[in-house]
């Protein structure tokens, strides 16, 4: 059951990434054509593109954690004995989780204030809290993905230890 939920979330993440990039590209391109050829355009195009960009990056963060593509320096971990490397890995994971927790808190309060304020975005007729509300969720998801990746690494190291 858990596996299936994971699978749906994974696919949804990927579909969202692809679609938001396609949306940004098409809107920006159409805007150029409209302005240059027909001397007209949409007022909302820029704001819509930048919000899509924000969402793309926020959702992409946890995709990067899942696929392990975030760049890190492996100067120390590759030179240590397995046990020490695992300890260093655990500390690094804790530091990353601390970052997620701080960002969840900060963005949560930010979104909460926008809800109290209740104003709309500049050109899009939607409340700002709705457009930025993805932020705490995205950082929470990043934390979960980091934990999963850390757990997989730990389990793999245990397996290797058992095999030896």
């Amino acid at each position, binding site marked *: 059951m858990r596996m299936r939920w994971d699978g749906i979330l994974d696919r949804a993440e*990927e579909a969202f*990434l*692809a*679609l*938001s*990039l*396609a949306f*940004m*590209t098409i809107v*920006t*391109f159409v*805007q*150029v054509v409209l302005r*240059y050829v027909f001397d007209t355009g949409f007022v909302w195009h*820029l704001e819509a*593109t*930048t919000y899509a*960009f*924000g969402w*793309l*990056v926020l*959702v*992409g*963060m946890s*995709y*990067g954690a899942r*696929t392990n*593509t*975030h*760049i*890190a*320096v*492996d*100067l*120390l*971990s590759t030179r240590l004995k397995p046990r020490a490397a695992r300890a*260093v*890995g655990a*500390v*690094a994971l804790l*530091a*990353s989780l*601390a*970052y997620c927790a*701080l*960002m969840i*808190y*900060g*963005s949560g*309060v*930010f979104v909460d*204030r926008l809800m109290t304020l209740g104003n709309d975005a500049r050109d899009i007729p939607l409340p700002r809290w709705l457009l*930025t509300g993805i*932020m705490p969720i995205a950082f929470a998801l990043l934390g979960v993905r980091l934990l999963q990746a850390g757990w997989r690494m730990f389990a793999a190291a245990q397996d290797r230890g058992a095999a030896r």
Partner: protein
Amino acid sequence: MSALFLVVVLFACLLLGVPVAISLGLASIGTMVFFADQSLVSLAQRFFATMQVYPLLAIPFFVLAGTLMTTGGTARRMIAFADALVGHFRGGLAMAALLACAFFAAVSGSSPATVVAVGSIMIAGMASSGYTRAFAAGLICNSGTLGILIPPSIVMVVYGAVTETSVGDLFLAGILPGALLTLVLLASVAVVARRQGMPRQPRATLRKLLRTGREAFFGLALVVVILGGIYLGAYTPTEAAAVSAVYAFVISVFVYRDIRLVDIARVFKESAATTAMLMFIIANAYLFAFVLTTEQIPQMASAWIADQGLPPWGFLLALNLLMLLAGSFMEPTSVILILAPIMLPIAVELGIDPIHLGIIMTVNMEVGLVTPPVGLNLFVTAGVAELPMTAVIRAAAPWLLVLVSVLIVITYVPQISLIVPEWVRAPTAALS
């Protein structure tokens, strides 16, 4: 005190293997919470605002254009054309690989992407025609750095965004230094090839030259679409990036027809993932740069350097050494984001043109891409060449001499960088 905390936390995190983005973010948040009266709320707000910095919006589009060209056969066509041009010289295939890197750099804004595009085809090809794998890997690892010097360039977009310099001018300024580096690398290959008696291929017939040229034309025309559009005033650099993505899509899907519709979803997903990875670093580097400015660190650093009474050449030397050091430990966009705002005011004080400074920084970052411990091109080359990291580092090292000597020339001869933008600007200025 706060500066010390910031740097210590950053380096501790990096050393522990915390992702670069999170290391930058955690160090900045920590400093803000402990030393300044900034709330986490304002940092969260700033994080989101990074994605509304207009020039940075060019990044996803340039990444998409590059991925479309690599997935489709555009890179392969450029390689065929390069081979037809120089293949008959001694060491011709090596020269063709280098020239292909320069061509691909003109349609892609990223160096690692250039290495993947050319390396995944050419390293195997060179190995089967009698070159060693290590030689091919070392050459392509270094030639691939042209990706960020020849326009378009993601590193220049970031420099332009953070220093408020014209991205269009930076692109134009990169043309001549890019051509110079390509020629010097070609000459070095010629010398090595003669000394080691490398293989040559039969001269391509004129017919073949024309055919490969015509096939590569749609790819190579992209740089005209980008720069021409910006300078005719049809669109901004960010819009130019979107136009180039659509252009790359149209030629790959409808003209060359070598991307199938089922591959398209994957291309978009991969481009979005690469963008997110880059922007996650950049957004945190913006937080880092924000902490630096609120803590007055750039001002103090520039005051300190100004007090040293360095002449411009001395400043440029110090700048290069600092950039090379930073470039070996960090990835280019973070280095630019942190150091450009510190260095720009000092440089302007000493009469150095911001455009020239941008080019110097870009070439420094090229060197940083091939120096360990953090060199993206080294990582990527090891991947496509299927060689261990240590072998790639050793193979890439001799070419570094070429890169560094060109860096010195570009640093001390500003005209190489400035002549093209000035020449393009002159007629428009005369009109107004």
